[in-house]
């Protein structure tokens, strides 16, 4: 599937340029002093807040959808000319031939939180267009004027990787000609208090893979990609990014804790590589789920190690977690980090793991003997001789319920398309 366009809004800012600035210069979007912190006086934590979301005004015809999640979505859809690109494709193929599948974990639950706190607002509360689990899909279709199939995947933090799997099935079956995939999750009290109750929230900015890591920082984000099985836009791209494979699996282990050996994680990566028809050794860069909880990072790196064991020969694998920049954006983490992979390929940059100072000795032990490189600063591949072009990048996302998904992207010359 060709990536025709993408759009991303996180606490780092809007669009490719502002994200790249932060990712290159190690500027985090996490903060412990934001407007949102006034709502959680008892919890000391860093958050990846998109400032001003609550004051975004939706157009008159979309007013019923107003909630933090859809406001964030609306702002994200306008980033980097994304909505215009969707319109261009609609003009070519017709609105019935463009589908939409998006991920979210909590939808617009913040509205229901609010109505419990202020019962006088019950009179005007619109559950269906805000909190209902498919509200995001309803909203995005109306906002983009799409009339193809649409639904929401909600498998916690793997939601917006699994959307790629649906898009591929829709495109390959000929049901539609293009698909908007994406994910939006916005800050709400449910997730902050919920993760806090599970003892998984760090008081400091999250430190993926570090020996002192002690939990996640929660963030919010909205991201979208426009996909099609052939290049459809006028712009001639010499090299374009394609989605080659998606792998999914279940841990079947525990509802809230990952399998200690990363069995499901490994299987998801294996399935992605298999669907893409490439070999393990081909993968240049892996954007880890890397939440910075003690159990996730160790389990995931165990899975990565098992995965690498299958490589006949290894050229070395770059790995990093970008959660230190954006926080864990939950149902939007998949799309956020898939777009990071797209940009990594386009710009030939390996993004660093922010806040990693000393790697956990247990992780060091796990990856011993494997050529895994985990940079603490951005690596500009073209400036790092001998230059070996990064061609394949993969992103992992895992969620509660033992739900795992990996997506594999490639940078390819259009003329030698590897996609059939």
């Amino acid at each position: 599937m060709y990536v025709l366009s993408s759009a991303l809004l996180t606490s780092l800012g809007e669009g490719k340029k502002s994200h790249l600035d932060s990712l290159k210069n190690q500027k985090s979007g996490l903060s412990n002093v934001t407007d949102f912190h006034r709502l959680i006086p008892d919890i000391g934590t860093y958050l990846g807040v998109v400032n001003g979301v609550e004051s975004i005004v939706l157009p008159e015809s979309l007013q019923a959808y107003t909630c933090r999640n859809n406001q964030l979505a609306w702002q994200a859809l306008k980033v980097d000319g994304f909505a215009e690109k969707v319109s261009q494709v609609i003009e070519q193929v017709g609105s019935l031939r463009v589908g939409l599948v998006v991920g979210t974990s909590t939808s617009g639950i913040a509205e229901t939180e609010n109505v419990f706190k202020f019962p006088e607002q019950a009179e005007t509360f619109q559950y269906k267009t805000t909190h209902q689990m498919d509200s995001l899909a309803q909203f995005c279709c109306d906002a983009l004027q799409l009339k193809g199939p649409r639904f929401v995947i909600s498998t916690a933090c793997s939601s917006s990787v699994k959307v790629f799997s649906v898009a591929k099935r829709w495109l390959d079956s000929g049901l539609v000609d293009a698909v908007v995939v994406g994910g939006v999750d916005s800050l709400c009290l449910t997730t902050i208090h919920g993760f806090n109750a599970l003892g998984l929230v760090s008081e400091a900015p999250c430190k993926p893979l570090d020996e002192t890591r002690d939990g996640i920082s929660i963030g919010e984000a909205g991201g979208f990609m426009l996909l099609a099985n052939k290049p459809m836009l006028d712009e001639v791209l010499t090299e374009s990014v394609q989605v080659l494979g998606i792998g999914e699996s279940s841990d079947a282990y525990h509802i809230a804790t990952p399998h200690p050996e990363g069995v499901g994680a490994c299987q998801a990566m294996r399935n992605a590589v298999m669907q893409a028809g490439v070999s393990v050794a081909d993968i240049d860069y892996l954007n880890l789920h890397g939440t910075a909880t003690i159990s996730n990072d160790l389990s995931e790196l165990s899975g990565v190690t098992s995965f690498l064991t299958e490589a006949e020969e290894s050229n070395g694998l770059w790995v990093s977690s970008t959660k230190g920049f954006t926080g864990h954006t939950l149902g939007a983490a998949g799309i956020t980090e898939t777009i990071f992979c797209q940009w990594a390929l386009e710009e030939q940059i390996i993004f660093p793991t922010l806040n990693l100072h000393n790697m956990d000795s247990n992780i060091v032990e796990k990856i011993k003997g494997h050529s895994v490189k985990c940079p603490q600063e951005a690596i500009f591949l073209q400036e790092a001789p001998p230059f070996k072009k990064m061609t394949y990048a993969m992103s992992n996302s895992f969620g509660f319920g033992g739900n795992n998904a990996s997506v594999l992207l490639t940078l390819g010359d259009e003329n030698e398309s590897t996609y059939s």
Partner: protein
Amino acid sequence: MKAHILSVGLTAPGLINFKQLETFITEQKFPNTSEPIEKYSPFFLPPNERRRTTSTIKLALKTAEEAWSSYQERVSNASDQVSVLFVSKDGDTLISSNICQALSEEEPMVSPTQFHNSVHNAPVGYWMIGQSNQAPASAISAGEFAIGNGLLEAFLQSQERQQPVLVVFYDLPIDEEIPSIEKKSGADANIPFAFSMVLDASQNTRLSNSPICNSPLLSLNVTQEAVEHQLESNPYKGVPAAEVYPLVKAMAKLNINRSKCETNNAFEISFPLNAYSFVKVTLNETS
């Protein structure tokens, strides 16, 4: 697209399972839709997990288990590692309601168990744990368009993976503490409903005497026009999952006629995919 229906599960007030629907039809009786849903406990789960399951999770698991066990009985070499798709408009609104209530207190205290049970994929997560199934598991919401989208997604998954898929539709009424304009307009639905199927859309050539080949065949097409049909009124009408009831009834009738060696006419029904398109479903005796 075509798929064989290998097994079915059904839970609704007045109907403890699919078999009972067949019995009611044969005896020309009608289910009492005001009866409570039968009590159930997912014994395939370890006690710790079982203790944490809610009514929503139990409704989904009970219905999944019915289709799953009858599939395993019928297909001797059945793989236990098949993809699973759970479809629900709202998931567990009692949990959302409890959490939002807790958050409205002076000192908010959210229960960790309620929090991890609040994710939309909690029921399918418990299912995968209970069945030691490491295949892909998905949980989706298509709002009122559950059946059209859920069937289409299940067909496509089965086709892509060339394997059977277990699909479960379940909806409960929205918890009464959650207010909404929709409830005021009378559009609320008070009857829970759940339905499940193991379907196989793979193109594998089957032995002609295999149970798969003797299973009813479901064909699916995306159309812009709905099939015009004169259906009896649906006593379960309300939640999106219940929209499948006429099709389930047609499946039950097909089974009854087959056991009497009577021929079945094809049954057609349309489910909306969204406000613009439909999924036309045709149920046939196996070709």
